[in-house]
């Protein structure tokens, strides 16, 4: 059968079959999810729902946060405390500092990014200087011996500069929400409009 250019997609079904299909398209419920088909098993629906929720939960922008200079602020302060100063050597001093903040909010990050006393001596003056400037230390990273502005494109402030901090809610995340909603609307509509005819016998749910 040749391809007719002005009528490219022509059916070969007989009129009776076409009429039957039309009735089916008009009569089906719920976007045809239950029609001419086995049902989508309920556990699968739950699994899909769980997937969507998990997708947003596990990629929440705050997880996997990079360490910033702010987590070391307490360490820097502790350097001047008498019991740390009284430590017999650097290793001991560091152990005392770490012991002080073992249960702090930044514990996980601090454990993953341990410092030596020498590291601390190098970054301490820089952190103090930044604190004096009054900037948000969470916008700075510790890279080797330097405290540098985070290489990071966060949201815009009102004055047009970037916030160099992982936003708790960012543009990409927001696009995703609309994208997912559009997908499920679109796929329901598409399934509704596509023909139910198959190369196999109908499974039930007969319509007149």
């Amino acid at each position, binding site marked *: 059968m040749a391809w007719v250019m002005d*009528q490219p*997609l*022509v*059916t070969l*079904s007989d009129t009776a079959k*076409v009429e039957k299909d039309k009735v089916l398209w008009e009569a089906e419920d719920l976007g045809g999810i239950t029609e001419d088909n086995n049902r989508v098993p309920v556990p699968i629906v739950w699994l899909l729902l769980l997937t969507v929720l998990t997708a947003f939960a596990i990629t929440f922008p705050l997880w*996997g946060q*990079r360490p910033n200079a702010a987590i070391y602020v307490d360490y820097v302060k502790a350097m001047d405390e008498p019991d740390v100063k009284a430590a017999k050597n650097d290793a001991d001093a560091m152990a005392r500092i770490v012991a002080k903040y073992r249960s702090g909010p930044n514990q996980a990050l601090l454990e*993953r*990014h341990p410092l030596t006393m020498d590291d601390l001596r190098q970054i301490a003056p820089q952190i103090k200087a930044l604190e004096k400037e009054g900037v948000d230390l969470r916008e700075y990273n510790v*890279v*080797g011996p*330097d405290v*540098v502005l985070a*290489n990071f*494109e966060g949201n815009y402030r009102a004055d047009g500069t970037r916030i160099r901090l992982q936003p708790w809610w960012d543009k990409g995340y927001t*696009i995703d929400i609309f*994208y997912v909603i*559009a997908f499920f609307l*679109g796929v329901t*509509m*598409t399934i509704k*409009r*596509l*023909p139910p005819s198959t190369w196999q016998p109908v499974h039930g749910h007969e319509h007149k």
Partner: protein
Amino acid sequence: MNFREYKIGARMFGFALGGSMCITLFLPSFDFRSAVSTETALDKQLTAGWETGWNVYDPLMLGHNKPLKVLVKTDPKSGQPLAEATYAYVYNVGTPLPNGIDHPDNLGESVEKLSETKGQIGQKTANGTVYLIKHEGNVPYIENATATMGWTPDMVMKGASDSDISHAGAGKTLFVREGCWWCHTLLPEQTQDWQVFGAPPMLGDFNGESPTAFGSDRKAPDLLHVGSRNSSREWMMLHFFNPRLVQPHSIMPRFDYLWGKVDANGQKIDYAKWRTEYDEYHAGKRIDPPDVPMYAKNSEIRDLIDFMLSLK
């Protein structure tokens, strides 16, 4: 009956794929365009030139048609010592220019403006061009030294000794050709490993670079800052010839074939003899390994080592 349903399907398909491309290609293009070159980016593109993957100017990827990076200590024109030694990027006639010079809008807004007004990178010069990196405040820019100061490639090359000349641009081509990046990444990760491998690259560090060759499968140390960790040419030489000479547990391939046919003295390199002697050493029959031949000045390994050392 016509299949309106398939038309709807086809439209939905176009809509879905188009939407996805809009978000993943069109929207990010604004962010990429707004990335402003850092000094690293300027240095990288001036060092490597137009392209270090396959291209029509270097179809066999031999590192031809590449700029030279030269340490300039005296003013090439007047012969007076410079207050501070500076790197000049020498583009002889016919060497294709990097993207930032051909298309300055790739440099990012502030850098583009300075490079065009103060740096005069738009100026055409007949006998090749010498570029410098300058700063105004914190903003780096490219200066066409041939246009602004009359430094020509000939003058710069005349005043430079061989040890001041870096073939890092050709070396980057070899880095790509030899597949170094299959194991050595050029990307300290943002989250974890910069205490060992150095600072992760910044957003503007790549303007004008092609290919970026980040690598994805790190079977070996990251090399983005290798020149800062190890600046010994001799170590590099031993390590490239046979990595097991300096690191018995290394799984790196030998790159002895990059030495070419002859060594620095023009003597033919006898690889078979070297390998036999090395095998004897390895088997404990010799106390010392055979000497690694000094590479010739124009050998490929020199380019590659220059590139390694340029990775600061």
